[in-house]
């Protein structure tokens, strides 16, 4: 009776863990290749895409 629904509590815990993992990846930063890529794009150079575009 007095027990809180466990699934609700579990789901909160799962979301907390998801956020923790997400934050860790986000806080890792990004590899240097993305700074290079943005630099090329800003200079108007067309970088090689890792897959073929549609247009």
């Amino acid at each position, binding site marked *: 009776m007095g027990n809180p629904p466990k699934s609700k509590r579990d789901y909160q815990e799962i979301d907390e863990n998801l956020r923790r993992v997400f934050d860790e990846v986000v806080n*890792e930063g990004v590899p240097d290749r993305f700074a290079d890529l943005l630099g090329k794009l800003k200079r108007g150079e067309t*970088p090689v895409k890792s897959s073929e575009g549609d247009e």
Partner: protein
Amino acid sequence: MVSDSAKAPQKSPEDELIEHLPAMRAFALSLTRNSAQADDLVQDTVVKAWTNFDKFQVGTNLRAWLFTILRNTFYSNRRKAKREVPDVDGVFAAGLAEKPSHDGRLQMNDFMRAFDKLPVEQREALLLVGASGFSYEEAAETCGVAIGTIKSRANRGRKALAELLHLRDDEELELTDRATMAVLSASGSSSV
């Protein structure tokens, strides 16, 4: 130096893009489960976004716009590659230091191993809604499905994770352990 930026009340999407790269990378990792593929996916997304910024409405949600491109690129690459079994390297789990959550109940590696087992629809719903704080509405728009669909995918994902991690048994297990310990210490028994 300040040029025309003083006049501009908002950053251009070109300048704002860089702030979204880490989140895009996390989303890409949750889709591909492979760090090399994730970075390629982010690169393709950046290039596509860059050449399509004229279609982006300044003042609307850039992050959702970028995530939509990333997601579409992922599915379109996957269709082209016709690769049903992705090359999972468990990077979400492997990249993380092994440390228990605040109450020590959940190991992050176990958690991410379980996450990697979920179907992609549930992984993306959980990443968007559970991890990166998208509203159900934003997530639904990003995935091009109804809000109810996102809700049910996220909840199925949470349920599957809870089952994979046996979260629901925790309380009983703890109680049982305590009861068992009491019995064992009282009786002096050494075997289970």
